[in-house]
């Protein structure tokens, strides 16, 4: 995460390279039906963190997966005359695995027009509706309640990032909601329960499955809208796709799907009736890049604004705390010094991601529920304060001892000497490395997407995957990052040359 801190402007370059590699991987040819049969194995991808009832670890047999899609994948594989093998992936990136190690994706992927541009969608195997979930003791009992602002202003509603539920919330401009994207639906339920957000929107089957675990939550209104789940395959495996379509057709027709869904308590007869006639797949969505860029630009700019906001609020905090730690370690009470050293080691020695998780998901359990933005700023400031303290410690030690002696010899207290003489000189000495860290923080803000803060990288990732314009949008995003880091690089160089002149 911090490996690129040596040079401030490398981040967009590395970013592009990563994206190009991902893109290249998508282009490799996928295994066709005969190859799948020859190896005797259908590799299907899903995200077990997505949870039930789709795919999740079996409570009775740790290490084993269960879920209705695990069984469905087994049935489809059996229809093809092969065994099914599971491959783990992050949900909103599952399609990118196609053609690499994976033959198909079976994981509650909604059948949407834009998906058809890049992937082959099978006939549907499940009809879902959307369910709004809120606290039992709260005011939200229906989606329409969100049409007027709540007591705290706009409602905060969570949804799985990249899901149809998220897309629907973002398109409903008549609702007074701020949409919070989560990497897992269970995370959003946890956050509704702890009061961090007001409600969550998800596929009905998910809440049906977890309703007992979240006893304080209720279904707010009837399920609505929705669509179908589809099996994704790559475009260049048409015969595999047809075989999967035929397999689903047979599983629906002979009643095995009904039996499966009955066992998972997923549906009654209306599921089967809906699916019997739902072989039709919507046409692909094709937009010009100019139109897409025009539509995406306001969102990218707003997310770049979030990146700037996070860095500009967190970094000054980190600097102040870091300087305090450095002063405490060099000049504070001896009893305090090992504590501060331990703080620096612990914070430096653990990943930023983990610290953000602890602040955002664990603190609410002890009664301190911070809004995501506050948690993100606190996490970044906490993490960077350890690094800044080390820089300031070096800077303070680099000021000649004669400066402190001269100040003391005039009758100043140690703190007066530090404040008026030593710290101002140390601050000037460390300006280049501190500016460099400021640039580094712009990149690290992307980790905050793990706690639902949507900044530039996350927005890019969502837009790129939902539209398929992976490279074009990457260029736009990289330019935005460059626009942020370049002025800081120039500033840093100016400080350095000024120091060289002064020396």
């Amino acid at each position, binding site marked *: 995460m911090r490996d690129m801190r040596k040079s401030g402007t490398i981040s967009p370059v590395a970013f592009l390279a990563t994206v190009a590699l991902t893109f290249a991987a998508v282009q490799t040819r996928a295994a066709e039906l005969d190859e799948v049969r020859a190896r005797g194995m259908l590799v299907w991808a899903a995200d077990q963190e997505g949870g039930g009832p789709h795919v999740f670890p079996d409570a009775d047999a740790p290490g084993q997966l269960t879920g209705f899609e695990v069984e469905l994948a087994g049935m489809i594989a059996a229809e093809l005359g092969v065994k099914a093998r599971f491959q783990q992936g992050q949900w909103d990136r599952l399609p990118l695995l196609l053609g690499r190690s994976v033959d198909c994706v079976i994981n509650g992927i909604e059948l949407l027009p834009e998906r058809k541009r890049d992937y082959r969608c099978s006939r549907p195997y499940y009809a879902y509706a959307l369910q709004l979930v809120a606290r039992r003791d709260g005011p939200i009992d229906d989606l329409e309640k969100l049409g007027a602002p709540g007591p705290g202003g706009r409602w905060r509603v969570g949804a799985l990032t990249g899901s149809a539920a998220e897309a629907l919330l973002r398109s409903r401009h008549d609702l007074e909601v701020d949409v919070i994207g989560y990497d897992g639906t269970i995370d959003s339920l946890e956050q509704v329960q702890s009061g961090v957000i007001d409600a969550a929107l998800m596929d009905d089957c998910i809440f049906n499955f977890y309703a007992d675990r979240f006893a304080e939550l209720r279904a707010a209104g009837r399920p609505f809208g929705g669509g179908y789940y589809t099996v994704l395959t790559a475009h260049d495996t048409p015969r595999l796709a047809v075989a999967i379509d035929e397999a689903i057709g047979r599983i629906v027709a002979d009643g095995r799907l009904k039996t499966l869904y009955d066992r998972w308590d997923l549906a009654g007869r209306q599921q089967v009736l809906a699916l019997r006639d739902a072989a039709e797949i919507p046409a692909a969505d094709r937009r010009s890049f100019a139109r897409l860029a025009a539509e995406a630009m306001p969102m990218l700019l707003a997310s770049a604004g979030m990146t700037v906001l996070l860095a500009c609020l967190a970094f000054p905090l980190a600097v102040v705390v870091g300087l305090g730690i450095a002063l405490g370690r060099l000049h504070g009470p001896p009893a305090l010094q090992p504590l501060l050293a331990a703080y620096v080691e612990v914070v430096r020695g653990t990943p930023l991601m983990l610290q953000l998780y602890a602040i955002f998901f664990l603190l609410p359990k002890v009664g301190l529920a911070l809004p995501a933005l506050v948690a993100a700023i606190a996490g970044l400031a906490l993490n960077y304060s350890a690094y800044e303290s080390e820089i300031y410690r070096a800077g303070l030690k680099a000021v000649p001892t*004669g400066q402190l002696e001269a100040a003391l*010899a005039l*009758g100043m*207290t140690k703190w007066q000497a530090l404040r*008026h*003489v030593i710290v101002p000189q140390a601050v*000037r000495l460390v300006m280049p490395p501190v500016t460099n860290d400021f640039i580094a923080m712009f990149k690290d803000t992307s980790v905050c997407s793990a706690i639902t803060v949507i900044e530039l990288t996350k927005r890019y990732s969502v837009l790129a995957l939902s539209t398929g314009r992976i490279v074009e949008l990457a260029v736009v995003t990289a330019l935005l990052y460059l626009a942020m880091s370049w002025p800081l690089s120039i500033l840093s160089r100016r400080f350095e040359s000024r120091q060289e002149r002064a020396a």
Partner: protein
Amino acid sequence: MIAVTGLTKARGGVTALADVDLEVRPGEVTAIVGPSGSGKSTLLRCVNGLETFDAGSVCIAGHQLAPGPQPPRLLERVRRDAGMVFQQFNLFANLSAVDNVALAPRVVAGMATEEARRRAIGLLDRVGLASFAAARPGTLSGGQQQRVAIARALAMEPKVILFDEPTSALDPAMSEEVLEVIVDLARGGQTMVVVTHDHALARRTATQVVELIAGRITRLGPPAAVLAG
């Protein structure tokens, strides 16, 4: 003004000062001379508490210093009454000449900023540097820096000024600039202790000269007597 009695200090098992007795009366200028490593600077730094000592006592401007670490409050009072000028000047690199002089009156004595600056410019004028008030230390010559450092020490109106090799880092021309300032102060009755190995400096400013060799006082008396041999 200063009474040093039986001052003894060892550093790393080596004797730095051995049973040093010294008295400095108000208005006197005492020069401490001797070879490098003889303990001259150490003696001076014990007097204003920049270093601790092992035995004996120091009485300075009515404050009593005992062996070992001393309370910060006591040291701050001692140092308000005893200004110090260093061999390497040690001007505050982050401040202009006038702010170097004005800082302590403002921070330590609580003087208003405008008043402190006004007085600082007066002191810079006294050492001949009024036109360099806004200059950064790095842009001044060594002699100019040392004169600013003297003005800085004077700003606290100390009862005694301690000079630690004030001309050793300067070439002869610059030494002369600084020497003239010190001579001028002596003429004004300022009590001073000057550590130096520059005999010309000692001869022209001192009322008494102390010779220190290997941490012991070997000779003490008027300049003509001590410096002749």
